[in-house]
């Protein structure tokens, strides 16, 4: 294996890591705040990609891509916001909320996936990337757009972290996540804050979906894979800090990239899931942090 191959694998691993970070953070934020796992997260990724694809069909080029991204992110924020009231809020005072939310989000995923099938058909599609040029990194020829994706993904995560830490509304979001009753006693509208959280998560999923859709083919059921990968990332990293799943995402991305090269496509997911079970057995709180959930 030459340096060019190594660099190629490494860079594509880092790129994957960036995408996984975006997806997994969305999932982790919902888990830590609402206390449930959102099994429709993969479907959010898929729907975000399809909305963006539709817009790029109407307005091509770099400008179209930007419009498509913004529109898709905004629409998905709204959808996430609304879905909180349909899927999770009804059980907020039910002791079985975790299980009930699993089934309601699974059903929502089924609705979204089948709606995509109805609206756009089963055939593979791809969003035309706005930048086609390639750059040379230590002999490996890599799409320039990949670096743009990585940069934007990291920027988006950074912005989200800043929003949660420094702005008052971000802080109230964290407060509602950490102690619901105390937040209510401060006069905060907790259901609204939870809805915003799910909206943010859906928006980040949409952004990830757009990027995935512009480097790979998409079809109505492609959300299952991002969902599973996000799960692996969240478990591996834990949710002790906002940044924990991000580190884990890069570990997973690079590990996947290398294992795909050395072990083949079929075995690389098996390696990931075996890693996940091992981590759950040895350090259930994740590789990066103590046993607590927070933002």
């Amino acid at each position: 294996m030459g340096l060019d191959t190594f660099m190629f694998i490494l860079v594509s691993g880092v790129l994957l890591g960036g995408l996984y970070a975006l997806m997994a953070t969305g999932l982790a934020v919902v888990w830590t705040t609402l206390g449930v796992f959102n099994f429709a997260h993969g479907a959010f990724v898929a729907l975000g990609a399809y909305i963006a694809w539709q817009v790029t069909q109407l307005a091509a080029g770099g400008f179209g891509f930007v419009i498509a991204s913004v529109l898709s992110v905004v629409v998905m924020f709204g959808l996430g916001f609304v879905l909180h009231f349909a899927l999770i809020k009804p059980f907020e005072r039910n002791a079985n909320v975790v299980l009930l939310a699993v089934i309601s989000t699974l059903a929502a995923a089924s609705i979204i996936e089948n709606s995509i099938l109805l609206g756009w058909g089963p055939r593979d599609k791809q969003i035309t990337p706005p930048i086609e040029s390639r750059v040379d990194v230590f002999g490996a020829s890599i799409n320039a757009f990949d670096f743009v994706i990585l940069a934007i993904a990291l920027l988006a995560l950074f912005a989200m972290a800043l929003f949660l830490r420094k702005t008052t509304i971000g802080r109230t979001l964290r407060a509602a996540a950490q102690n619901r009753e105390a937040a209510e006693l401060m006069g905060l509208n907790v259901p609204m804050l939870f809805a915003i959280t799910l909206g943010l998560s859906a928006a980040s999923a949409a952004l990830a979906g757009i990027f995935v859709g512009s480097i790979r083919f998409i079809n109505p059921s492609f959300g299952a894979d991002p969902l599973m990968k996000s799960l692996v990332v969240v478990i591996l990293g834990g949710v002790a800090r906002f940044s924990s799943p991000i580190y884990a995402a890069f570990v997973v991305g690079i590990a996947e990239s290398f294992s795909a090269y050395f072990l083949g496509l079929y075995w690389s997911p098996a390696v990931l899931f075996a890693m996940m079970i091992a981590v759950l057995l040895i350090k259930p709180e994740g590789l990066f942090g103590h046993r607590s959930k927070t933002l």
Partner: protein
Amino acid sequence: MKYAPPFQRTNGFLPVLLVFAVLLLLPFVVTETYARHTLILIFIYAVLASNWDISLGYGGIVNFAHLGFFAIGLYSYAILGKVVGIDPWLALLLTPLPAVLFAALLALPVLRLEGIYVILVTIAATQLLQQVVVSQSTYTGGTSGMVLLPRLTVGDYKLSSDNRIGYYYLGLGLLTASTFFLYKLERSAMGRAIKALRDNKYYAISRGVSEARTRLLTLSLSAIFPAFAGGFYGAYLRVASPDVFGLGFLTITLSVLLLGGVATIWGSLIAASVVVGLSQLLADYGAWRNIAIACVIIGVVVVYPGGLFAALQELWNGFDRLKTNLLASYRRRTSAPLRARAMGTADQLIETSHGQVSVCDTQVGEQAILFIHGNSSCKEVFRNQFHALRDQYRLVAFDLPGHGVSPNADPENDYNLAAYAQIARDLVDRLKLGNPIVFGWSLGGYVALEYAAAGNPARAVAISGTSPVRTFPDDMPRGYIPSPHMELAGKRFHSPHEKTQYATHTVGLPKHSEPLLWQAVWRTDGMARKQAFAKLQTTDWQRQMGVIRDGNVPFVMINGPRDPFINHDFCARPEFGTEFAEKPILIDTAGHAPFLELSDVFNVQFLNFIRAVEGRG
């Protein structure tokens, strides 16, 4: 002590027998292949979902690898039958082995984790399994799966012949066996250990339930029948594909479980028919079908999280309340002469602050005696006193709400000791009973004490078949002898057998000698039974003890030595003694209702007490 009657003596026996008979005969009516195919799928989903309840419902282990058991069953059948080439029946029989092995392996991480982590590790395990299956394409056919699996035959007869009649009965047999297994498991010591570990882990462990062993067995036991179902599925459809790992299959099975209601065996059977039936009905609509099913799932889960079985039970509850109320109003009109003959006086409905009650009042006499009957009984239980004492005292007895010929009342507000005591107070005011002597039997004994404790006018209080309670619930096991009949007292629905048991033990008389009392057990609103016991904890027991302790109201206990419920040693404790009787007065050989069984002896003792009270001034 747990009351668990054999299945043929419970209320569920007849409906289940009926459904089984219908399913047994259904193929003679439903001959079309597609309809039978749908029924076979329903059986498979019902087996899958109801066995999931062992881990998810009863065990509280949110095991998302359950469909992995099914997949292992399917692939073991396929590999054993096609690649290894053994007899298909033997292959089917062997399917649980690898599945149980997988379950046991799964128990290792599950034991170490809790809550949402269990969901995640089991999902990961299933995904890992899928990857293994997909990557070993030499044996498993990879992503495209395996086709033309060996079919099941009996001699030369193929089970798929005659529109799949053989598979239909095999599927039904599987479902029956699985349901029988679940029913037995739930009622076994193992089943109780599984539930105990779910409800209060540390308490269960401290009582000697081994967590590791129980969890391991929970998962292993839940793997047996899904594996059979997987093998059966493979033999029936003759296809094994990795689709069984998909989210779609998971969603349908989980929705069968949740729509039916978690921790109910029968719920899965009902929900499987609804979900699979709907899905087969809409089979031609493709994506729309999936959307419709998902909408139904969300709708039911959001609006009625209890599930279909709970809905059925609530309907049955409503029906039962309606039935008992109609029975009461029917009897009020038709059996009035019979009741008047028994009591020597006709009864009338009187409005109180807790609904209408039927009251029998002899009206003549200076001193009034108010009689309060017990759980699932009626005022006619005091008929011997009404005949013997009516010349000397004014006698009043009433049917508690939901009992006898009183109408049913609001379960939340009217079926508790405080409400019953308030009814007694209302009657004292309405009928101008002055300062009555109050006699309470069994549950009525607590009503009498509560009446006095609330500061209502009472010249004296006597109770029978009741153990005083100092602290609740600690004194319940001390004051009463644990027996299955105690459990019946607070049970909402009684099967005919249970009603007979309860009636003969409380009244202590053979079946046809006391028709009115016999009917009363049948008539009693199940909610009254349930609520009166459920709300015992809201009673101020200290205040009741104050009545006995302070001695301002003369008090005595009159019991039957053969009473099967109360603990006589407990009742004889010195702290319950009064100046009238240091220990409870015992009536010869009487049982739980001495005033009815040996009324002559009882009346003498009761009058002695009253005279002593009157003598005191």
